[in-house]
């Protein structure tokens, strides 16, 4: 047996996301928020639009970094959470590779991207394919799945880099295909630096 993404997703979407009496959603060692996808897409689109050509790369990398740091810390909270232990860990038979598959199942369950690992070389390289992701709805030009890039890199580091919190900046991620530019799916290649 290995991690069955759709089974994990179906289990995790049953977990009710509800704010407490303080209007906060603590979980996975972080404060969770539940905002319109239009908010995140509009922010990214308009930030790119106000950025002059000579600073576009800096802005893109800053947008990716927002998701990268989020993915690293929240990802660790996810894979060490009781929910992950009860839903995903019983399916783990291939060590880090399966933990990573489980993390991408959670990635899918949270509504970030309907995605999965299509190739993996232990500790070296991973290819993620997403057949649906909300960033593809955003306006702009060129590849713009900043969040998927950042989180993919973060999850690879949680699986294969130095133990948390010392494994950052070990991998890099490049988006090679995007629904937002007319490709049938998004593709993200994570490689060791």
């Amino acid at each position, binding site marked *: 047996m290995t991690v069955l993404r759709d089974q994990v*997703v179906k289990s995790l*979407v049953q977990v009710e*996301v509800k*704010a407490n*009496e*303080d*209007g*906060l*959603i603590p979980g*996975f060692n*972080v*404060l*969770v*928020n*539940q*905002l*319109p*996808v*239009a*908010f*995140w897409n*509009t*922010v990214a689109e*308009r*930030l790119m639009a*106000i*950025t*002059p050509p000579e*600073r576009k790369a800096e*802005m893109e990398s*800053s*947008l990716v*970094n*927002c*998701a990268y*740091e*989020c993915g690293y*810390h*929240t990802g660790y909270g996810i894979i060490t959470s009781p929910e992950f232990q009860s839903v995903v860990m019983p399916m783990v038979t291939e060590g880090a590779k399966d933990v990573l598959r489980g993390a991408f199942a959670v990635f*899918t*369950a*949270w*509504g*970030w991207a*309907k995605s999965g690992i299509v190739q993996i070389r232990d500790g070296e390289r991973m290819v993620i394919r997403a057949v*649906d992701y*909300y960033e593809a709805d955003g306006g702009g030009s060129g590849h713009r799945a900043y969040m998927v890039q950042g989180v993919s890199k973060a999850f690879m580091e949680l699986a294969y880099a130095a133990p948390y919190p010392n494994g950052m900046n070990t991998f890099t991620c490049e988006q090679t295909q995007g629904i937002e530019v007319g490709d049938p799916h998004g593709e993200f290649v994570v490689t060791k630096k």
Partner: protein
Amino acid sequence: MKLELKHTFDEKTFRHALNGHGVVLHCHHYMSLTTKLAEDFADLGAPRVLREATEDSIRPMLDSYIKEHGVASPEERLEVGRQYFAAMGMGTMEITGGASGGTATLKHSHVDEGWLQKWGPHDKPINHFTCGFVAAAFAAAFDKPARSFQVTESASMVMGAPASVLAVKPA
């Protein structure tokens, strides 16, 4: 009035929606880093972008709820905003006022508390998201177009205040 919330999950796309509007779960790291990014690119006007993007993306959720449930009074409409704010995990807000202005007070704030958890105190207010949210709530309450209200953070948790206070006045 209790806000009615209907959460749906599309089994084909695996996307979530709240009262018919697409939503996604993220965390305080993402919000704090996005807020910091806006601060870092202040020379380009990024804080204003963050406020306006919030106002423009929250407003449709408020408007559709107000229309579908026939919420008529400005007070009740502000209450819709207050309860949506909490349902989204953004904190507890007291929001009062009229077409000539008002106040929003945050006793708990995802933006402020998330920032404090991540980076600790700061030397200026950082609640760009909430300024945009409150602008949307007031505009929806009084049937005004976007940018009708100017929202300024006059006290801030990240600066040591016990609550963040946002002053609202017509733009």
